[in-house]
Structure formats: C-alpha cells, structure tokens
C-alpha cells in the first residue's frame, strides 16, 4: 500500500513537473469567442478595430447585414444598432478608445523612433578644437570627428562612432569602447539598450582611404577589393566576418536583446547559425529572450517553435511582461466566430 502511494505520488510529481516544464509553449492558448456572426452578417474589417493590451482587450466590430446595411457596432461584446448609414455606425465605433490598434502584424524588428536630440548641446568642441560629446553630465572625447550618435529609448546610454587620425571608435557612454577598422556604416542597439552592433565596410581606415589619391592603380584596385568585405562588430568587442555581398540585414528583435543577421539564406543569432521557418522574414519572427522559442507569423498561420500552428491570424499583438512574451491574435473561424487567442512564448 505504502509503495503504491509512493508510486502515485511519484507519477503525480513527474506529471506536475512535466506540466511545469512544458510551460509556457506546451499549453493550449487561452481562447475567447468575441462575437458570432448571425446569418447574413459580415464584418467590415477596415472599419473594425482590434485593441489588445496586457490587462484588457477591446474589440470593436462594425457589421453589415447586406451590401447597403443595416449596420451594427459590437463594442466589447455589446451589440448596438441598427444604423441605416455607415457614418452613424462609425460615430459609435469611434467612441472606442484605442491607442494602438492591432495591424496585420507588428514588424518584430526593433526600430525605435530616433530620440529627439539637441545636437548642439550634445556634440560640441573643446578648447583645442576637438569634437566632444556631453551626455548626462559627463564629457566624452575629444575626437577629430563624431560621425554618428544615437540615444537609447530609456535615455540612459548614448552610442557613438568617432574618428581620430587613423583610428575609428564604436563606443557607448557606459564605458565600452571598441576600435574598429574600415568604414563604419550603420549601427543598431537592443530594446534594453545594453547591446549594439555596427556594420563596417572594408578594413582600411578612413585616413588610409584618403591617402589613396595619387597611389598606383594596383593599390587603388586592392582598396576597392577591400571595400567589398563587410563586417559586423558588437559593442563588447566581437567581430563577425568578413562577409561578401551576401550579408543581408542585421537587426535586434523587439522581443529579445540578442542580435540577428542574415548571410545569404542563413540566419545567425549572436554569431551562431539557427534554424528558422521556410520563407523566413525578420519582421515575422518573434524569438524569446533566450532564443530557444519563437513564434512565426504568415498569412496562413501563426507557427510556434513547439510545432503548434494556428491558422489564419487576422492580427498579432506582442507584449512583454516579467521577461515573458505574450502573444494575442484573432481569427475568423467557421466564417462566423471571431476568436481571440492568447499564448505565452
């Protein structure tokens, strides 16, 4: 008897741990039917709004029964109408407040609006004529030239590219500073502002490039050849490359803080090649912070890395909470049920 009890307890514990470890992707998503269309009713999609947030969802549907109406408005499950004119229905629909309506899907490449900067107060000159950066009460430099500056969304850090005689620096105001060769192009930083990646062309410094004038054609040709090489350099000093013309886009996802880049058809996370869904698009790829799980959006389905697939997501909204990524999306099932799903990545 005692042994059976132990066995039962063990089975329970294994099941419970199994369930716990299967979380969050192993679980079925929360499913809510927002509205079921009655016979003859049709949702006017462009006039309707899906508004998802972490604590509450607001779904506003504008519905017509026939081509010329009558029209109805479903406000958070409550049906209002009929209205003879669409404009009357739209007046009611517009009462619903929504700061961030769900679009088809939100592109998951982190692309913050540039912080408004008073460049004159940030980039200045010291007494010797060198360029300096003033940020959050500290001064950085002097350098011969400040080439680019970007401030993180929380305004705690400023990344910059600066050049001296024959040196180029990729630096952050938190103290990290990397000397880079070649011609710096663009750089991007992560959603939490702590990680950044710079794209570089060639290995010759800007000073070396300037000296090319008057050099032999062979040297110029070699320099041109050098310019075909591309590199990526992280703010913590790692360099990736050389790549050729096959180096595609590089980005930080909005849902994670590791950098990703494409070389030909291959996708790399933090310098290591990863497996991605067929027909990969960076915008449609939603990785978890540790890169072990992902969701992938297409016109046909929302695919999770655990293999689960949900057909025809009308719109996808992604929010992060306590380090977890929560996805909400809607689907029109059986041509009549508007369903909202929620699943944690």
């Amino acid at each position, binding site marked *: 008897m005692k042994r059976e009890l132990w066995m039962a307890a063990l089975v329970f514990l294994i099941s419970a741990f199994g369930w716990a470890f299967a979380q969050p992707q192993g679980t079925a998503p929360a499913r809510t039917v927002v509205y079921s269309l009655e016979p003859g009713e049709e949702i006017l999609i462009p006039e309707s709004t899906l508004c998802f947030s972490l604590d509450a969802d607001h779904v506003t549907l504008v519905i017509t029964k026939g081509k010329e109406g009558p029209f109805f408005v479903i406000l958070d499950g409550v049906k209002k109408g009929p209205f003879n004119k*669409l404009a009357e229905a739209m007046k009611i629909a517009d009462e619903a407040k929504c700061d961030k*309506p769900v679009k088809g899907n939100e592109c998951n490449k982190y692309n913050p609006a540039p912080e408004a900067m008073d460049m004159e107060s940030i980039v200045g000159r010291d007494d010797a004529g060198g360029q300096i950066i003033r940020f959050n009460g500290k001064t950085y430099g002097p350098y011969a030239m400040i080439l680019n500056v970007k401030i993180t969304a929380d305004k705690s850090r400023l990344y910059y590219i600066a050049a001296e005689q024959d040196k180029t620096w990729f630096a952050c105001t938190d103290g990290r500073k990397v000397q880079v060769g070649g011609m710096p192009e663009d750089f991007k930083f992560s959603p939490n502002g702590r990680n950044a990646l710079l794209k570089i062309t060639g290995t010759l410094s800007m000073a070396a490039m300037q000296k090319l004038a008057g050099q032999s054609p062979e040297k110029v040709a070699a320099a041109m050849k050098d310019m075909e090489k591309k590199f990526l350099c992280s703010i913590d000093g790692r360099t990736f490359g050389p790549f050729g013309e096959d180096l595609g886009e590089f980005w930080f996802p909005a849902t994670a803080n590791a950098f990703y880049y494409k070389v030909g058809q291959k996708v790399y996370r933090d310098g290591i090649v990863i497996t991605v869904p067929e027909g990969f698009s960076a915008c449609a790829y939603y990785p978890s912070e540790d890169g072990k799980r992902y969701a992938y959006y297409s016109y046909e389905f929302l695919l999770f890395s655990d293999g689960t697939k949900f057909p025809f997501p009308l719109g996808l909204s992604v929010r992060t909470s306590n380090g977890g990524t929560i996805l909400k999306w809607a689907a029109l099932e059986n041509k009549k049920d508007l369903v909202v799903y929620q699943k944690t990545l």
Partner: protein
Amino acid sequence: MVVLIAALACLIAAGPAPAAGQAMDYAAVFGAKYAAAELFVKTNAWISGALALDPGEARLALAVVFPEIIRFSSFEDRIQVGALKVLYVQYGKEYANFSVGRFQMKPVFAEQVERDSNRLLAAEERAVLGAPVFPAADTVENRRDRVLRLDDFKWQVRYLGLFMRIMDKRHARTVFADTLERLRFYATAYNAGYTNSEKTIRRILPAKTYHTELFDSETKYCYADIAVFFFKNGPEEPFPRFNRQ
C-alpha cells in the same frame, strides 16, 4: 428615371467645377497629395523601364495608375489591410474586394490579369516582364502567393505591364480618336473593372466616383480626367526605353 436619378446623384457628388472651357487643375485640387505622388513617379524612373513598353506607352501606363498613387499617398499610414489579406487567403473571392499597395490593386484584379495573361499573351510577352504561367487553381497556396506578389511593388509594376498588354489585345479593334481618348478608356477600365464591355466602360467613363478619403467623400472627381491631367502635365522625362533599368 433611374438614369435621371443617377445623373442627378452624380452632379450632387461632383466636385467643384472649373469655369466653362477650363480644365480642372488637379495638382491644385489635391495639393501635397498630388505633389507626393508626382515625386514618387519622378524618383522611380525605373518603373518605365520595368514595364518594358515604348516610352510613350510607359507614360500612358503611369498615367493610368497615377490617381491610385495619389490615393495611396493620401492614406498610406492609415489603411490597414493585413487582416483582409489573411481573410482572402483563408476564404477567397468573397474577401477579395480590397486594394493593396501603391497602385491600389485588388486581388480580384490580379486574379483576372493572371487568367488573361495565361490565355491572351504569348510566352515572349510574359517573359519580357518576368511573369510566369500562373497557376489556375483557387487554393490557399495560390491565393497566398498572389497576396505576396501584390505586397511586392515590383510585382505591381509587372501586373500593370500585363494589364496594358491585355487591354491592347482585348481592344485591338476598338477605335480611339487619339491617345487621350485611349488613355481615358484604359484608365476607366483599370479603375472600374477591365472585363466590362467597351460600351459599359465608355458609359461610366465620365462618372465622378474618385476621392481620396478613407471611406467616402462628398466631393468626387472623374478618374480618367486625373489620368489625362497627369499625362499632359506630368514629367515627360525620364521615361527610359525598354529595360533600361
């Protein structure tokens, strides 16, 4: 009676009329929207080359879609068709009535162009545009591929090139007084449905149904008139020759 009511409605819906003998200045009517659309055409001279038409025909083709470029410039940030694309891929035709991208092409238009391209155009005519033989089956995969093509502006240009060639075939015997009359006809067909008969297209040609609001507007204009205005007043150069991209 119905015709009379329709004519009256058309007059009521019509925009401000210019003085007799004066053509409407659509650049002034649409202001910044027109300027944005014109700038788009000027800065994308490659389109004319990609259409693989003679310069005159390329200019005509761009005039055909120019009112749609204005419309797109007007609400490109506001219109959301993502969910409609999904519903079209999922359920097909009954959700196909929405417009995509710079040339505001509808999936139903693309379906028809694909069918007619397979049926009416020679392999060389398709090849010069980089268009394949399109699969005919109405499946989720084919609808998905069609939406992906419509999302790709280079493909919208290809669809426009196919449309021009299909119109030439369909109306090879139609008599046009001059280039402007042909442009009016092609523009109306593009806007109202090119599978309509010649008689229907000519009948609806002067209708004032065009506006640049998201849903509806009390002031409306004639689509063909705007196309003609752009043709007459738009940039003549650069319209590079065949495949000079």
